[in-house]
């Protein structure tokens, strides 16, 4: 990471563009924009090195509001645009802003391939479990049975669990946060930035118009301690109104235990390790609907591994070819291996 050339310290204001923000009042996107504008100045990156690429949807208007380089691309393709940009410009800090429809429906193919290639690209997926910009159809993350304009009798699609999908697609960094927890979101944005490789950050984001309060159980004072689980590397999985509940693994099955009555101590609980892919998979699959009083919904960094990035491998191949074969002179490329002369 290069330090800014400018001695002046950047502020959140430096990252706000002149364009009027046009999301609906109360939209969770405002909070995300604010947290990004708060964290970016602290990352010690020159502002001109940031490029934010988005697809289509409410979330994808994001680049217009950021005073960085940005591209509002076409539906589902931000991952591919970002890949081409990063492949040719490894020094840029490339962020992708996308939504649940953009990333997982129309862009599903590019999404999985970005994860496996592991370009050093930061993905923030705003998940509101609904199509907002097209005015309220169910999305690939909407819960089954969701009644919307396009599913008046309830949707019959099984939803994606984005974190599980990302892990399955070989993501090297998977995390989840929420629009209504600014501090946690800031920490997750920072972690995404610090990760070398593709980082997938799912952000639960409220759509007050078409899917209001979908995630409120995870943040409301009365329910959040029961419904949410904040994981941290090296720490046991503990939740509950008074931190009285823990999760331990019975074989590969997660079990909720009462720390007060079960006789299980904190040391016996599942200790979260960000590098453990097997456990990350189990954790990501905590996906019960709020109110079931089973497993809580986890937030935080589920998985993080250091793995070669596509653009670095590409550069290395180029470097290696240059060192071993040497750059082929254009004259040699033009002539090829076999020539003959036609005399006058």
């Amino acid at each position, binding site marked *: 990471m290069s330090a800014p050339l400018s001695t002046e310290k950047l502020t959140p204001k430096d990252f706000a563009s002149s364009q009027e923000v046009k999301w609906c009042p109360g939209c969770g996107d405002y909070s995300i924009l604010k947290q990004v504008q708060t964290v970016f100045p602290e990352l010690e990156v020159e502002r001109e090195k940031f490029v934010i690429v988005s697809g289509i949807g409410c979330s994808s208007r994001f680049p217009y509001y950021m005073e960085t380089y940005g591209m509002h691309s076409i539906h589902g393709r931000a991952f591919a645009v970002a890949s081409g*940009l990063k492949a*040719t410009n490894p020094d840029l800090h490339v962020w992708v802003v996308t939504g649940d429809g953009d990333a997982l429906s129309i862009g599903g193919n590019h999404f999985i391939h970005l994860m496996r290639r592991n370009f050093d690209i930061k993905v923030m997926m705003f998940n509101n479990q609904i199509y907002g910009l097209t005015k309220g159809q169910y999305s690939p993350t909407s819960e089954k049975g969701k009644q919307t304009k396009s599913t008046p009798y309830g949707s019959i699609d099984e939803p994606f669990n984005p974190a599980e999908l990302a892990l399955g697609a070989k993501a090297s960094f998977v995390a989840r946060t929420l629009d209504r927890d600014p501090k946690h979101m800031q920490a997750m944005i920072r972690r995404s930035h610090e990760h070398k490789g593709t980082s997938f950050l799912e952000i639960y984001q409220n759509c007050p118009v078409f899917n209001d309060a979908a995630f409120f159980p995870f943040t409301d004072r009365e329910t959040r301690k029961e419904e949410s689980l904040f994981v941290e590397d090296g720490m046991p999985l503990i939740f509950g109104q008074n931190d009285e509940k823990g999760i331990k693994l019975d074989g590969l099955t997660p079990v909720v235990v009462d720390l007060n009555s079960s006789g299980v101590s904190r040391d016996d609980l599942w200790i979260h390790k960000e590098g453990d892919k097997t456990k990350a998979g189990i954790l990501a699959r905590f996906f019960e609907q709020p109110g079931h009083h089973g497993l809580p919904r986890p937030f935080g960094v589920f998985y993080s591994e250091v793995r070669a990035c596509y653009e670095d491998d590409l550069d290395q*191949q180029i470097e290696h070819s240059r060192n071993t074969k040497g750059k082929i002179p254009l004259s040699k490329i033009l002539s090829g291996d076999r020539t003959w002369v036609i005399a006058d």
Partner: protein
Amino acid sequence: METTAVKRQLEIKETDSVVIRFSGDSGDGMQLTGMQFTDTTAILGNDLSTFPEFPAEIRAPAGTLAGVSGFQVHFGSKEIFTPGDKYDVLVAMNAAALKADLKNLREHGVIIVNTAGFDERNLKLAQYPEGAHPLDDGSLDHYRLYKLDISRLTKDSMDGLEVSAKDVDRAKNMFVLGLLFWMFERSVSNTEKFIQEKFSKKPLIQDANIRALRAGFNYGETAEIFTTRYHVAKAKMPPGVYRNITGNQALAIGLIAAGEKSGLPVFLGSYPITPASDILHELSRYKANGVRTFQAEDEISAITSAIGASYGGALAVTTTAGPGLALKTEAMGFATMLEIPLVIIDVQRGGPSTGLPTRTEQADLMMAMFGRHGEAPLPIVAVATPADCFETIYEACRITLEHMTPVIVLSDGYIANGSEPWKFPAESDLKSITVHFTTENNNPSGGTFLSYKRNDQLVRPWVKPGTRGLEHRIGGLEKQHETGNVSYDPANHERMVKIRAEKVEKIADSIPPAKVDSGREGAKVCVLGWGSTYGSIKGAVTELIAEGHDVAHIHLRHLNPFPKNLGDILRGFGKVLIPEINNGQLVQLIRAKYLIPAVPLNKIMGLPFATTEIKSTIKEML
């Protein structure tokens, strides 16, 4: 070897051009045989043109008609424009090959068959009627038929060599090649060198193939079957250094050259598709030159990754064939809105849908012209011959970089795999390509950078992300004039649509005027062509002119915008004929734009025009 004593009365026949068709099963190595014959022929100084034709299936069941793979080479002491309508020599390695390709053998032509490929099983697989035997029933009496058991002759040549039956069988194409080398007075040495290099790590196979090659040559020399050798003198080609090149190779090389001359790294986003994949293969070899190839997960990622690379300042390219171009259309509209450089290569094939993947067609012109939603004109250039691919792609790179617009390059399957001798340019002969990255704020009032402020060519600035102080956003939403901010203003939209169109029209200022390739301006009939019909039209028109007819040929490289004088020059002719390997596309554009009653000539068989087909149509119009 060629100087062994002549044991019999050998006739040496002088001829100015010959067409040979090597035909066999997909596994018989006919493509390699054809290419080796071509290489030696090129080095000998003949002009030539080739046409490889292979099935879409990688290995259709052996011996079937579906599995026939052919390679046609036309060479001569005169200028050669096409791979030839009819062949003089047909090599048929099995019954299916004979059945598939006999139709285009000229009267009294030579047939060399491998009798081992004509047993009962082979005849049945080739769907000859029960009991029929084409080699013995007199049906080939009006040809000169040579029946050789090539399989056995090849085996005999390996006496004492410890090679497997399979390897013996696989060397039989070298026997044929050796025989053809003898027949046309060509040395085996070039192919020997090739075999030595190819099998340098397998000395036994090397030995086997060289033995078969020499045995074939010596068979012609000693077996008293062949009474004629053919002498084809060197062609009178412009002096210089030549190489042989296929269309796809020339496209790849042209891109590398344009990258070096513009000082930009080349990025190719591509998804494998026949017949365009060879461009991806070729470019992937040039890592040492900084060429970045990205085999994308699909056609859409292929083009959008290229858009990302272009945004970052690379010479970005995507390559595809018809079905892939269809998938790229939304992204093409996006790149039109972004006004960034992007080279889109479409190697056309038979359509619609999966169509005829390995056959040729020119049916994507209308899609290239209009295949985007909204008003989204793009410049289009088309390649005429394999060697022409180089100049045309270089021109496409110039247009895309200097005019900040995506460019579509139309090639087709016939050119992609076909080859011809190419008098390649010296590096210093290549025109420079000017690229300017903006690094200073262009706003006269010192306010925000104006990302859509244009120069006199209506070209907007290209800014690399990472440039301090010029941070800005671009995207697919309509842009406000000059500022580039999102705008839904009705008048602004109309203005921007017109500006984008005018920008493409202005490219006509920098392209050469249309001129006759053969014949004279104002001739009775003008044949107007584009793309791979070049050779067939050229051949037909040249012959007619030689016969005293008043005919001309114009061939278009630039299909959008057209050369500025095209309407005027066309109006000067008596009649205009437009042959196309489609159902009539350029003819519609010409009629619509210039109100000229141009006459279509169409062939939609997945095959190029025969020269005679065009010639006879022109004659009817004279």
